[in-house]
């Protein structure tokens, strides 16, 4: 059943139908928030608040937007708010080559290894670069959708993605030279 059909059922009074939308988007909301905030509990809070806000605002949802883009707009806002208020965007990891070299192979921790070099490099990016990179290459959004989600212009987003890639290039090359 399409997103629009589930939304219609919720608005017709079948509020439990909202759980179908949660099932559909929960994982990708979590992975974005987890990579954006770098903190499991914060990511949980961001996703929780996103779905609550989406539920409450469902009557204002416009079908000309995709539900996914609409949901991600709320999620991006939540990640920004939590990131600022909890100081997550003030962190800067000290890059320790020896520690990374001694760390176990990536792929542990449910596919999320905070010691993975690229993960470390992503955490070191400015939040707006990380956000653009995750939306573009992680969530495979086109630039128009990204503009609607982030509020930034397409040209600004392209520049952010390019800057993120340039900064991550050395880590990507090292990561796959195994």
């Amino acid at each position: 059943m399409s997103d629009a059909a589930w939304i219609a059922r919720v608005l017709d009074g079948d509020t439990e139908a909202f759980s179908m939308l949660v099932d559909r988007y929960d994982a990708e909301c979590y992975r974005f928030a987890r990579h954006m905030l770098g903190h499991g509990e914060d990511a949980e809070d961001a996703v929780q608040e996103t779905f609550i806000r989406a539920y409450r605002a469902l009557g204002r949802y416009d079908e000309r937007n995709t539900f996914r883009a609409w949901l991600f707009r709320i999620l991006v806002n939540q990640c920004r708010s939590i990131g600022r208020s909890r100081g997550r965007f003030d962190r800067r990891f000290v890059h320790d080559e020896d520690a990374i070299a001694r760390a176990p192979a990536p792929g542990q921790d449910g596919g999320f290894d905070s010691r993975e070099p690229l993960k470390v490099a992503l955490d070191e990016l400015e939040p707006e670069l990380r956000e653009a990179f995750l939306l573009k290459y992680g969530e495979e959004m086109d630039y128009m959708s990204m503009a609607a989600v982030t509020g930034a212009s397409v040209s600004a987003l392209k520049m952010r993605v390019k800057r993120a890639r340039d900064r991550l290039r050395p880590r990507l090359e090292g990561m796959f030279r195994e």
Partner: protein
Amino acid sequence: MSDSRDPRLEQWAERYRATARPDGRHRERLRDAIRSSPPPTREPALRGLTIRPRAITIGWPLAAAATAVVLAGGIAIGVRLAPRSEPAPAAMRPDAVARLVRFELDAPFASRVALVGDFNGWDPAATPMRLDAGRGRWTTALALQHGRHVYAFVIDGDRWLPDPDAPLAPESGFGTPGSVVVVEGAEPS
């Protein structure tokens, strides 16, 4: 690294999408939160106007009175304004294609709410919002030119609030956060 087809990026993306959701009580907490929220309802006044945008040429006073379209976040009905003898608001050029955008804020305990933005000089006196007391919702509709606009709400004259349902913008020159609305449409020829 050239584009998204770079195999290194593809491999990273595969790992990214394999990020596992940890088991926990998060679904129960979400279910409880939703059950304790009032059920959402359709906005009947808006639905019929949001099927497809149409460019309608009408005079400016009618545009100001026309019913609005969806929440601020970029979707609006197209309304092409015909030049009139009355001066257009400061946000409008006489030859500009405009869109009506509806702004809403749920603030049942506020005494007054104003819309401020780059389209009205960030003046809290310029665009007071109207209260639907039954729903605790403040609303207004404004014709905006095509393009990107930054705005916020001012609560009771002194508290600035970005739109909780819209993308955040980089902080304005006043040091307070704003929200972004993108008004779509072709530039006038």
